[in-house]
């Protein structure tokens, strides 16, 4: 049996499990979950009764995929509002089994409560990810979650021996991050965002501090929350850091790149992943784009069951060259963010590669204005650094629109806003890339 000192994988039994065994494990967990949630989750009971489904109808994984109805954010919110239940009918237990409540970011409205069990599925997946970066027992890593809104979980790392060094995720904390990097020599930095990179870049320019030296113990840095623009990537790589991109797996876990950098590993023992036609219950072909639909396999407090995430991904179950067997995804965007400009599909991911091409817009900040799905021209709000402006705003607008129009072949109008003002439009460290107005 593998031991915790084995090098490549934190949990080799699970991470490299052959597909047939993995599906057997999923089926066992699903068949335990089905009667449990039907008995305990008011939303599941309500939804399944509306569709005439009972646990007796589900005898296999195939039955589950064919018969169990979907839920989505709107279903949960509707149940919450109708029944005055903050958990939206998802909670299967009450305190003390229910320990706490975390929340989604609230980018698009009231934050959605995420009831928390004693165990933490997100951290369980992240242990595997930090291990593959190179963090081992007794090693430290800089721990910069976006917020405290999921509660305190530093003790959840105990069973892998990794030691989180907590740093507040804020550009104001940059000097402290640099200080603890020299003091504690972390092996990884989890995680950074666009505002943190901009803050580090500005700190380096202003102070003359050598970030390559300060971060020399770090074997990998995790970037998440949105796609990374080529310019930000260049800045981070300039500090000698290998970047691993991370995305949410429908708020129940995360998915992250390995050293092969060919898609983010979804943990299919933690979440049942379905990759479906965005408008139907049809499995999309391997490697194609589809909607991510998840079922929580290890959460007995408030599991999502066939939750349509609204996230469009390309997805493959081909084993990775790193040796792991779980499916890999590449986020494309949110279904609800898609715009049709003159009939052509446009998502924020189409803008990211080009938006930072000018010195004034290196931060890569922008918003697509989406009053409705179909428009004749794309309206873009673009963040810029006034200190870098070398002609005038009208000329910068012209340069940006010409570049994007030639790359995307659609009509575009650009309005400028300073980076500072644009960052204030959303929750901290995250701006909505699509806005109604």
């Amino acid at each position, binding site marked *: 049996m593998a031991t915790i000192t084995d090098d490549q994988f934190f949990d080799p039994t699970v991470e490299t499990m052959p597909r047939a065994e993995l599906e057997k494990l999923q089926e066992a967990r699903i068949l335990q979950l089905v009667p449990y949630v039907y008995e305990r989750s008011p939303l599941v009971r309500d939804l399944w009764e509306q569709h005439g489904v009972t646990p007796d109808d589900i005898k296999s994984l195939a039955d589950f995929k064919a018969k169990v109805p979907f839920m989505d954010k709107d279903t949960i919110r509707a149940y919450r509002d109708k029944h005055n239940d*903050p958990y939206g009918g998802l909670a299967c237990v*009450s*305190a*003390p089994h*229910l*320990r*706490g*409540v*975390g*929340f989604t970011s*609230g980018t698009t409205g*009231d*934050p959605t*409560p995420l009831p928390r069990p004693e165990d933490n599925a997100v951290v369980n997946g992240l242990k595997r990810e930090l291990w593959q970066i190179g963090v081992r027992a*007794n090693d*430290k890593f800089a*721990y*910069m*979650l976006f*917020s*405290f*809104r*999921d*509660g*305190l979980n*530093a*003790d959840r*790392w*105990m069973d892998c021996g990794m*030691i*989180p*060094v*907590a*740093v*507040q*995720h804020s550009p104001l904390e940059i000097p*402290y991050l640099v*200080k*603890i990097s020299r*003091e*504690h020599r972390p092996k990884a930095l989890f995680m950074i965002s666009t505002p943190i990179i901009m803050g580090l870049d500005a700190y380096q320019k202003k102070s003359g501090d050598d970030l390559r030296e300060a971060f020399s113990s770090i074997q990998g840095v995790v970037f998440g929350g949105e796609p990374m623009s080529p310019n930000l990537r260049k800045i981070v790589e300039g500090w000698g850091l290998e970047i691993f991109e991370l995305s949410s797996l429908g708020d129940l876990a995360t998915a992250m790149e390995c050293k092969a950098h060919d898609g983010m590993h979804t943990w299919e023992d933690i979440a049942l992943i379905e990759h479906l036609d965005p408008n139907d219950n049809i499995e999309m072909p391997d490697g194609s784009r589809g909607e991510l639909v998840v079922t929580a396999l290890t959460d007995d407090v408030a599991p999502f069951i066939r939750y349509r995430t609204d996230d469009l991904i390309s997805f493959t179950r081909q084993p990775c060259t790193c040796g792991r067997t779980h499916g890999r995804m590449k986020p494309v965007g949110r279904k609800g963010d898609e715009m049709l400009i003159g009939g052509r599909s446009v998502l924020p991911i189409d803008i990211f590669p080009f938006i930072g091409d000018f010195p004034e817009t290196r931060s890569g900040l922008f918003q697509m204005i989406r009053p409705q799905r179909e428009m004749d021209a794309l309206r873009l709000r673009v963040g810029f650094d006034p200190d870098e402006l070398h002609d005038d705003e009208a000329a910068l607008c012209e340069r940006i629109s010409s570049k994007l129009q030639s790359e995307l072949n659609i009509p575009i109008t650009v309005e400028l806003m300073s980076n500072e003002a644009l960052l204030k439009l959303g*929750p*901290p460290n995250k701006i909505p890339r699509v806005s109604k107005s």
Partner: protein
Amino acid sequence: MSQITQTTLSPIAVGRYLNVDGEKTSLPYSLMEVDRSRRAILRVLNTFHFRTGANILITSLFDEGAHMMPFERAVMTYGMVAASADSTPWDAKRVESIVRMFALSGAAGISGDVLDGLAQLGFKPEELFDGMKVWARPDAYERLKAFPNLDVYRWMEIGPAVAVECSQGAGAHIDRFEWNVEEIDGEVVLTNRLNRCVEFKNYHTGLKAKVHNGGCDCGNPDPRIIPA
């Protein structure tokens, strides 16, 4: 002679404390320290006679694990549910949303930043926090105390230690088993009595306060701190 003369505590994490100049200083801490502090905070929570299943809002920052995790775990030990939000101005919307969605019995770690954020959004603390126990940080305590309808108590970071006020509202209790607490020239000075990841001997916290020893009317003999 015994081969084992001293053991060293392994940290589970590194938090931070504010040194006497108010600067962040990293603070490795162990699970034993968290658990001892949790027990001390339970002695305080016990004086409020909360009911299992009650909801408590905890506002904190991600790097405050060494100080706030014991409070969060004490809430959970009590069988209550901890709902979390950042203690920053820009997370005030979440605070309001939690107050609106959940029937709260208490709110802990409320800071001046939280109050500023609520004010910017047009929310009134005297309405939001009405009917619950509120543990306020020093920069929010007097502001909330000004509202006679609110039930306000102290939540204080004192260097590496934490102090929490009981139902009697007669000073914030600090764990007497963990810390030797002295008042020297009106300043709180701490010395750890048990093994910790980081030792603090005669540590001058910079906090000007009265230290009250002896029993409190709540029945908890832990010393009480009342800021000057």
